[in-house]
């Protein structure tokens, strides 16, 4: 499993395009907002959590389509499923690699962008903490959609249609947590709920991904 993660990481490092494209998308998406709503500091501070979260969500979705597609087309996914590693293990490894190459860089860039959006400096820790819970959730839920749409005719359009409704609860609690922090309340209950969702998804999503991967190879 570790080897599979390392293989995926090495592939990304050598090709590089997908992960950096998602990151660039995230940065550009956030930078567009001050132009769209005007550069007033109060407005920007108010919308900063939502903008960052939605941009992160879309960036995760953008890179999600390629998660299994390449391996599916050149047949290596089939070999992976035939290997002694159970399909759930393959799923966990692929999701972990996806999170490492898109989620983690996103988490690291987010504080810089938050400063551009005039978020107070003392909230940056909370932002990174929230994203640390949110980005793995995005990878897990998105991977379910990516595995389900493998080989579909309009997978590019279909994937957001399946995954975005499932992202709504994540977005709600992450935004509520960040807003609570901004208005001086405790973000703890929201973060605990997010943590609970992450625990649940860590257990259930690999099962769904594995079932979908097996279905794609029947």
């Amino acid at each position, binding site marked *: 499993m570790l080897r599979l993660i390392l293989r995926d990481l090495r592939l990304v490092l050598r090709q590089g395009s997908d992960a950096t494209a998602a990151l660039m998308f995230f940065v550009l998406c956030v930078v567009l907002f001050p132009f769209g709503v005007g550069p007033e500091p109060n407005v920007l501070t108010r919308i900063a959590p939502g903008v960052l979260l939605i941009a992160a969500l879309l960036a995760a979705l953008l890179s999600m389509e390629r998660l299994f597609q390449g391996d599916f087309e050149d047949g290596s996914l089939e070999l992976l499923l035939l290997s002694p590693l159970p399909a759930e293990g393959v799923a966990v490894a692929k999701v972990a690699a996806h999170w490492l190459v898109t989620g983690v860089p996103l988490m690291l860039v987010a504080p810089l962008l938050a400063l551009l959006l005039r978020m107070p400096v003392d909230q940056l820790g909370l932002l990174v903490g929230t994203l640390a819970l949110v980005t793995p959730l995005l990878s897990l839920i998105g991977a379910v959609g990516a595995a389900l749409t493998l080989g579909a*005719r309009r997978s590019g359009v279909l994937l957001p249609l*399946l995954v975005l*409704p499932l992202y709504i609860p994540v977005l709600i609690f992450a935004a509520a947590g960040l807003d609570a922090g901004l208005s001086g309340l405790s973000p703890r209950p929201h973060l605990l709920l997010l943590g609970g969702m992450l625990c649940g998804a860590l257990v259930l999503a690999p099962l769904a991904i594995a079932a*979908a991967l097996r279905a794609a190879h*029947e």
Partner: protein
Amino acid sequence: MHRFANPARFLKIANAVLPWVAGLSVVCFAAGLYLGLIASPPDYQQGDTVRIMYIHVPAAWMSMFTYSTMAVAAAAALVWKHPLAEVYAKAAAPLGAGFTALCLLTGSLWGAPMWGTWWVWDARLTSVLVLFFLYLGYMALVDAFDDPARGNKAGNILLLVGAVNVPIIKFSVEWWNTLHQPASVFRLGGPTIAASMLWPLLLLAVAFQSYFFAVVILRIRAGLAARRVQTLRLGQAG
């Protein structure tokens, strides 16, 4: 359950049941609509707008019922490869989406005079909206593959993933402080709704339910026929 896995046996029973549920639906719709829209008293606070409830609440119940049964059917299809379960899920999906749309629409029409707004982003409304998107996503996913068996399988997995949403809808009015009122019919300690309003509501619930069964039987019949046509065509081509 496996006794009815044979489509021929299922169709024999379904055809016998069909006129009865269709008739029951017509009778209950007529009686329920008369009682609900004309004979029942207006609410002491809400006046005549309360009559929206007689459509809104059964539609909401049906939207949940349809999704839950589809999820159970999806599990049966994945675990036992039950041949009718997939046909059922596929047949029920547009009906469920229709009930959910009706529920959202009437809720919005009811909210405008009562809450002073067409829509609020509270937990109940949002989770029902997610349910609506799940129905649409399922239908789009099932249709997206050249091989129908693969589409059904992907759809079944999506149905099971989306089943997380059902308890969230049910308990959203208790877990969060919502503008939407909590349950007043299915609750511990009996319904808090007046009998003169409960009766038309229950009649219409039966009407919606039997309408659902009648249409779902028709759609399953059509689904099975379509599958036969496809097999025959393949046989001819080969």
